[in-house]
């Protein structure tokens, strides 16, 4: 909400510097987000136009002779609205300083030297208006500061949703008055009633009393439509509202003054001169003031006349009953509409208006609604020469009572951690309009209905704290009531540390994915990962669904890096994937580790070597080791959808890995080969503390086995077969070489080297024993796998 300091001072004589005022308001919970100075110029004078003539060389320029007390001066002016002689303008002579243009100097314009300039609003920092130069009022004294009356400071205040009372200048003024201990001056509402009773001219029927607990109508006659006074227009502009006419401006003025929205109907355009407050009928339509035809629904509350809808209650008026230059009689509405009803309709129509903003938060059904009606009537009499008919139609069958709250001193101390005596509480709360009675153990308060946020003792406690100042509360450390249990996510943290130690950089990608990216993975339709949880209101295509795998996010991250020349990119991510569950409202969320690698592996002082599948597998092996997961089986999986059919593996029952299929990576715009691993961390359980295996006390003996074997036999089969022998002296078997040079290896075969480690637990092994054990194993391999030792 924009607040004009000039306007504010109508109600509270605050003299503090704008910055101090802003700081105090902010610390009182009314956060000033921006302070804007209007008319922040110096040396600009009120000047009288003496004469004006066309510039000899320029069609659009005028030479204006002005007088500001120091003799006539001829100023070149480009505006189309130079007033006739006698009119008054704002002249910035050389030496004046303007907010955006800076120091003004004499300047040659089309051959003529112009001593400064005549100013438009934007040049003076009053508004963005640059239509023409400012016309000052006829009584402005020549030669004085032209901005004396125009200077203002506008605060943009972020009013929290619980404080509808602060959506008008008076409410802010009440806070300022309390902060600075100044009296609050309420705007006058005295108005003379003329003519017959209002009921002779209009009727109001409220059919939905829950949605409209109070409706006040007043009738004003002999209205003379026209512009509102210049100062009113200026104030409205300062708070961001366009001046329209004296009638509309008066309703807007009261809205920004008291926070109560009003509506002026052209009484003569209300069929039957009646107002009916009712719900919309199915299929009912009306055109709102913004010119849009609206389809209404039975949940919408309407203002209707004898025949049709004339306004969406609390949201926006209709075109049919709008005031116009020919309007003579006005029905002025001031009402309390149910916040939820207004909000539902405003939301459904996508119509967020100043009125709906206030009704949604709750206006004051008592004094607020009543005094706004009177105040606006008074302004219409003053600004539009209107005559107010006697009385008001006030449909208010059930008065909303003021809330009564008891606040115990002990409860305040317990919640705030500071003791506040009842007398102090009373002193703090009274300036806010609360009626406070001090008691021995606390206070009893009657809360005005313009404060719907104060309903319980805890709400009053906050009010005490707020008035006291949060900065005056002590800072204490609570005693720990509870010893923390083991917490956090040890598997995920261990995975992060390990993958970081493997030289990978941690990525965090969005939990979203686009359907297009998911489809680009080529998953089968049966794959649950191809059926993601979808957003009903995505922001962009990229947020259409929740990811079911980390692959698309990491592919996109890789793509970004490659595009930026980061050719060697090794990323990992520990994140959540989401799998829809049949018949369950919430999806399954699984913590998942993903690895994405592309580029090359550095070799010291030698050309780098391209990364391959085994760089990826090495990372996985390290990860499993650190996670305490027994080495899982890696099985070739040619059918793994997003992967290269020959370089893809299932990893145990909880992971998959491989080279990303060239088609898939092409769909992500990636040319370089890249390798991806995904591990479902939910399937793994954190290991207990490692248990010591005693160090061997006797030396071991190594024996190599070099052999040819069928290409089709996976390397892992050999160690598996070796172990199957159950040789007690065998400690370890390792794959050392896989050699396939066709010049030296028979077709269909590969040459492999294995190293076996033999050791006895209780003695130093002899060469002979090791050889015998080794021969038994080789014999077994020959028999079972058809190897031929070399």
């Amino acid at each position, binding site marked *: 909400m924009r607040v004009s300091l000039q306007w504010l001072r109508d109600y509270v004589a605050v003299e503090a510097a704008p910055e101090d005022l802003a700081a105090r308001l902010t610390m009182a919970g009314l956060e000033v987000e921006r302070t804007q100075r209007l008319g922040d110029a110096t040396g600009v004078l009120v000047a009288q136009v003496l004469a004006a003539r066309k510039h000899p060389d320029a069609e659009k320029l005028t030479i204006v002779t002005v007088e500001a007390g120091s003799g006539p001066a001829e100023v070149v002016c480009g505006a189309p609205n130079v007033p006739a002689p006698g009119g008054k303008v704002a002249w910035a002579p050389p030496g004046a300083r303007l907010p955006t243009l800076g120091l003004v100097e004499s300047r040659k314009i089309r051959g003529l030297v112009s001593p400064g300039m005549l100013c438009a609003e934007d040049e003076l920092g009053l508004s963005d208006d640059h239509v023409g130069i400012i016309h000052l009022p006829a009584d402005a004294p020549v030669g004085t500061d032209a901005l004396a009356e125009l200077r203002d400071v506008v605060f943009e205040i972020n009013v929290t949703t619980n404080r509808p009372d602060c959506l008008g200048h008076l409410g802010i003024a009440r806070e300022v008055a309390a902060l600075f201990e100044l009296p609050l001056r309420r705007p006058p509402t005295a108005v003379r009633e003329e003519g017959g009773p209002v009921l002779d001219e209009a009727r109001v029927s409220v059919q939905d009393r829950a949605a409209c607990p109070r409706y006040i109508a007043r009738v004003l006659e002999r209205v003379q439509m026209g512009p509102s006074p210049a100062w009113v227009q200026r104030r409205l502009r300062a708070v961001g509202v366009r001046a329209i006419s004296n009638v509309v401006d008066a309703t807007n003025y009261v809205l920004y003054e008291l926070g109560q929205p009003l509506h002026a109907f052209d009484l003569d355009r209300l069929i039957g001169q009646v107002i009916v407050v009712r719900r919309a009928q199915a299929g009912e339509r009306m055109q709102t003031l913004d010119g849009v035809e609206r389809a209404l629904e039975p949940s919408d509350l309407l203002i209707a006349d004898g025949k049709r809808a004339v306004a969406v209650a609390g949201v926006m008026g209709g075109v049919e009953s709008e005031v116009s230059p020919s309007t003579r009689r006005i029905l002025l509405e001031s009402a309390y509409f149910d916040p939820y009803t207004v909000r539902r309709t405003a939301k459904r129509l996508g119509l967020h208006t100043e009125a709906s903003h206030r009704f949604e938060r709750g206006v004051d059904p008592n004094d607020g609604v009543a005094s706004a009606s009177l105040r606006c009537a008074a302004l219409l009499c003053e600004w539009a020469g209107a005559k107010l008919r006697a009385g008001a139609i006030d449909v208010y069958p059930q008065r909303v009572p003021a809330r009564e709250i008891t606040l115990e001193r002990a409860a305040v101390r317990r919640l705030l951690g500071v003791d506040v005596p009842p007398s102090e509480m009373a002193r703090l709360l009274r300036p806010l309009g609360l009626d406070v009675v001090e008691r021995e153990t606390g206070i009893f308060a009657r809360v005005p209905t313009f404060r719907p946020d104060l309903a319980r003792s805890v709400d009053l406690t906050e009010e005490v704290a707020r008035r006291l100042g949060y900065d005056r509360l002590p800072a204490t450390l609570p005693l720990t009531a509870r010893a923390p249990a083991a917490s956090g*996510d040890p598997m995920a943290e261990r995975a992060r540390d390990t993958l970081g*130690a493997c030289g990978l950089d941690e990525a965090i990608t969005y939990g979203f994915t686009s359907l297009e990216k998911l489809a680009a993975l080529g998953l089968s339709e049966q794959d649950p990962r191809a059926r993601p949880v979808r957003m009903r209101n995505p922001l962009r295509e990229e947020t259409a669904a929740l990811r079911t795998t980390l692959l698309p996010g990491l592919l996109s991250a890789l793509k970004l890096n490659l595009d930026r020349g980061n050719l060697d990119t090794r990323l990992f991510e520990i994140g959540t994937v989401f799998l829809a569950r049949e018949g369950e409202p919430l999806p399954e969320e699984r913590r998942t580790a993903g690895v994405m690698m592309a580029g090359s592996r550095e070799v010291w002082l030698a050309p780098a070597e391209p990364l391959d599948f085994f760089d990826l597998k090495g990372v996985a092996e390290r990860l499993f080791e650190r996670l305490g997961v027994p080495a899982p089986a890696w099985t070739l999986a040619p059918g793994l959808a997003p992967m290269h059919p020959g370089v893809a593996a299932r990893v145990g029952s909880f992971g998959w890995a491989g080279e990303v299929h060239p088609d898939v990576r092409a769909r992500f715009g990636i040319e370089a080969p890249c390798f991806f691993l995904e591990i479902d961390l939910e399937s793994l359980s954190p290991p207990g503390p490692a248990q010591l295996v005693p160090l061997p006390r006797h030396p071991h003996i190594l024996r190599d086995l070099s052999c040819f074997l069928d290409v089709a036999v996976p390397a892992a089969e050999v160690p598996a077969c070796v172990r199957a022998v159950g040789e007690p002296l065998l400690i370890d078997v390792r794959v050392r070489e896989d050699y396939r040079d066709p010049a030296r290896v028979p077709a269909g075969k590969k040459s492999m080297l294995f190293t076996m480690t033999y050791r006895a637990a209780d003695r130093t092994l002899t060469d002979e024993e090791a050889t015998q054990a080794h021969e038994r194993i080789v014999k077994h391999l020959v028999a079972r796998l058809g190897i031929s030792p070399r």
Partner: protein
Amino acid sequence: MSDVLAPALSELARIAEGLRSESATLRTELEIRSAQARVRRQLDEVLRVMRELPPESKKRLGQAANQVKAEVEDIVSARLRALTAEEQAADLARTVDVTLPGRAAPLGHLHPITQARRDIERIFGELGFEVATGPQVETDFHNFEALAMPKDHPARDMQDTFYVTDDVVLRTHTSPVQVRVMLRQPPPVKIICPGVVYRRDDDPTHSPMFHQVEGLLVDTNVSLADLKGVLLHFVRRFFGADFSVRLRPSFFPFTEPSAEIDLLCVFCRGQGCRTCKSGWLEIGGSGMVDPEVFRHVGYDKYDVTGFAFGMGIDRMAMLRHGISDIKLLFENDVRFLRQF
């Protein structure tokens, strides 16, 4: 007699002399040892005449031979020593270009958000807060209703929400975790809940996904002063001992009283600058748990009070590391990641 011994004696001397002059040319231990063996054979050859000599001459020749033998051993060991010294000298003359890059396995980096989160967990852990987690896809009840934000409540406007269905949302804050924990266990509760949250918001200063940490302490006598003390302790540990926090009145439906958490500006230290304007930077929201929330989770039957807070992990990481653009956090450019 001396005539008989003379050729043998001079031969011995010649052999020793020969080895002495040869030794400088011997470059390896092997050469030295083979020269030594050859000399021994030559000496033996010379001494073969001893058998035919009279005892007196035999004695003289023997003495002379032993002297020569000792001399040979001296020459050999001196040469070996010299050789070792030469080798060491040669080794010490070796030099490497210390300016060449080192040979190292690549170093990985944890995301600055992870690092910030871990620090937060550690600092609150020291104060006795447990880490609790909850789902990112939440029911409307846990995310809004139980936090005193019924449907059509204006406060919902503060949090633009992604909807999966009418009743299922992407959590807009980590507060639903406190609801889940309180529904699960009786007081006291002392938790922090770090995690991913989503808002339907995408502009230069917002990201549709970001990270928050929620804190909740519920016990018999928890006060706003305690909240202030805990937050002050936290920012001093996280940002540095010369930092402070300020609580500023605000409104959240699920806390009463409510407060914004402002951190002394990391850029100007409270002087007021272009980033903060006021000398303070907002890092989160907080307050005393609203009785309405206690009612929703069945805590109204206990006589307890509590505080809750929510702070932006991303925001704190950005302030700590001088990152001004939130987009950098989620682009995953390795040139960015490798700086932390």
